[in-house]
C-alpha cells in the first residue's frame, strides 16, 4: 500500500472541523459581525472531551452506542473518499455502496439514540430526519450511478480521478446537473440551511440538532466531529467533480483543498441569503434534486 494514500485521510482528520469555522466566519462577515475564531470548533471539541457525560435513567446502551457508532462509521467512510489525484486508503469496485451504507448506519444510530431518550421532541426530529434522508439517498445513488456510467469506473477513487478538465468540455451539461444535485444532497445530508438550520434552538423546527439535544460531553464531541467529517467528505466529492485537474498531483491537492474551503464559503453565503424552507416544501426540493440527477443519468445512458 502506498504511503501517499494516507494523505486524504490525514487531511480529513485534521482539517474537517475547519470547514465549520470557515462557514461561520463567512456568515458573520456577511452579517457585519466579527464572528467566532476560525478554530473555535477545535476549542469546543477539546472542551467537550474533557467533560464528563450525564445519562438519563430512561436511556439504554443504544443511547451510549449512538455517537460511537456514528464516529466509527464516519471514520471508515473517510478512508474511502479520494482527494485531488490521491486515491483513498481503501478502494475497491463498488465501494460507493459501502460509503452510502456507512452514512446510512451513522444516521440510523443517531435516530435510534434519539428515540431511546423517550423525548417527544427528539422523536419528531428523528421522524423528519428519516423522511428527508429517504428522499436524499435515491438522489445520491443516481448521482453516483451517473458518474460511474460517465467514467466507466466503479470505485470512488477511480471514479473521481478522470472527471473534470476534458470531461467538462465533452459532457458539460451532465456534470453541471450532477454538481447541482450533489450540492442539494450535501446541504440536506449535513443539515444546512435550505433544509435545516444548524443555529436554531427551537425544538419544533430543528431536524439534526434536536436529535442530539440529550448528548453531552465526549458524546457530543463525537457527534460534532463526525458531522464535520461528513461535511468534509461531501465537500471532497463536489470538489472532485468541479475542479480542473493538472499534471502535478500536489498542485491538484492544493486546488482540491482550496475548492473545498471555497465551497464552505459558498455554503456560508447560501445560509446568509436564504431562509430555511418550510417543512412541506423540503420534500419538493429533495425530489427536485433526484429529478435533476435522473436527467443527468438519462443523458449519459442514451
Amino acid at each position, binding site marked *: 500500500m502506498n504511503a501517499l494514500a494516507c494523505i486524504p485521510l490525514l487531511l480529513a482528520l485534521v482539517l474537517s472541523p475547519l470547514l465549520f469555522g470557515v462557514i461561520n466566519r463567512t456568515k458573520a462577515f456577511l452579517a457585519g459581525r466579527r464572528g467566532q475564531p476560525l478554530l473555535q470548533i477545535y476549542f469546543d471539541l477539546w472542551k467537550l472531551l474533557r467533560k464528563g457525560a450525564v445519562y438519563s435513567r430512561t436511556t439504554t446502551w443504544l443511547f451510549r452506542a449512538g455517537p460511537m457508532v456514528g464516529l466509527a462509521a464516519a471514520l471508515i467512510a473517510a478512508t474511502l473518499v479520494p482527494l485531488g489525484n490521491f486515491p483513498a486508503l481503501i478502494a475497491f469496485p463498488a465501494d460507493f455502496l459501502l460509503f452510502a451504507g456507512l452514512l446510512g448506519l451513522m444516521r440510523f444510530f443517531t435516530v435510534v439514540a434519539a428515540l431511546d431518550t423517550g423525548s417527544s421532541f427528539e422523536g419528531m426530529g428523528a421522524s423528519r430526519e428519516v423522511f428527508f434522508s429517504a428522499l436524499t439517498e435515491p438522489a445520491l445513488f443516481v448521482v453516483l450511478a451517473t458518474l460511474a456510467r460517465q467514467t466507466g469506473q466503479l470505485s470512488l477513487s477511480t471514479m473521481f480521478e478522470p472527471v473534470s478538465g476534458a470531461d467538462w468540455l465533452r459532457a458539460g*451539461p451532465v456534470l453541471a446537473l450532477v454538481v447541482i444535485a450533489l450540492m442539494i444532497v450535501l446541504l440536506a445530508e449535513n443539515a444546512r440551511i435550505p433544509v435545516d438550520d444548524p443555529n436554531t434552538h427551537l425544538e419544533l423546527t430543528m431536524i439534526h440538532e434536536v436529535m442530539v439535544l440529550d448528548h453531552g460531553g465526549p458524546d457530543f464531541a463525537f457527534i460534532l466531529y463526525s458531522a464535520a467529517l461528513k461535511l468534509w467528505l461531501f465537500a471532497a466529492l463536489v470538489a472532485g467533480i468541479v475542479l480542473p485537474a493538472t499534471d502535478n498531483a500536489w498542485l491538484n491537492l492544493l486546488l482540491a483543498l482550496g475548492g473545498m474551503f471555497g465551497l464552505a464559503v459558498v455554503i456560508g453565503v447560501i445560509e446568509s441569503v436564504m431562509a430555511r424552507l418550510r417543512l412541506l416544501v423540503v*420534500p*419538493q426540493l429533495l425530489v*427536485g434534486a433526484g*429529478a435533476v440527477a435522473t436527467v443527468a443519468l438519462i*443523458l449519459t445512458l442514451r
Partner: protein
Amino acid sequence: MGTNLILVLVVLTNLKLLASSRLGASIRVVAAQGMVLGLLPVLAHVHELSLHFAAMALGTIALKGVVFPWLLFRALREAEVTREVEPYVGYISSILVGLMALAASFWLGGRLPVTTTGVSSLLVPSALFSILAGLFLIVARKRAVNQVLGFLVLENGIYTFGVGVVAETPFLVELGVLLDAFVAVFVMGIAVYHINREFDHIETDRLDRLKG
C-alpha cells in the same frame, strides 16, 4: 455543444413547470424557454446562417419571450389568481410522471427513423418530452392559465422538432405556425378574462355544468 445546452435547459424548464404552483413563475419559465428556443435554429445551423434563420429567431424570441408572457400576465392580473391550489395531480407526482415521460422520450427518440440533419442527438427526445409535458400540463391542471402554458409548451416541442428538419420547411409554414400560436394565446387570454368575469374563477373543472 451550444445546442445540447439549450436542449438540456428546455428539459429542465419543463420539469420546473411540472413542479411549480405559482402561475407567475410558470409564465416566466415558459417565456425563458421560448427565448432559449429562439436561439436554437441560429446555433443549430451556424454554418449556413442566413436571413431566414435570423428572422425566425427574432420572430420567435419576440413572440414567445415578450408578447405571450405579456398577454398571459394581463390575463392573470384580470383574473386575480396567483397560484394553482389543488391540481388533479400533485407536484411531486408530476415530477415523477415527468421523469418517466423523459425516459420514454429518450427510448422512443432512439428508435424513431427521423433525419435531424445531424443537429443534435438530444433534439428528438427533448422535442418529444416537451410535447408530453405540455399534454400532461393540460390534463393535470385546473387553472385555465396553466392549460394555456401547457399548450405553449406543446407548441414549443413541435417547434423544436421542426428545427431539426428546418432546411426542408418553407419559411411561410413557420410563420403560419407562429401566427396560429399567437392567435390561440390571444383568444385564450380573452377567454380566461371572460370565464373569470362570468364565474368569478378560472377553474376549468367547474365549467362542465351550465350556470343557473
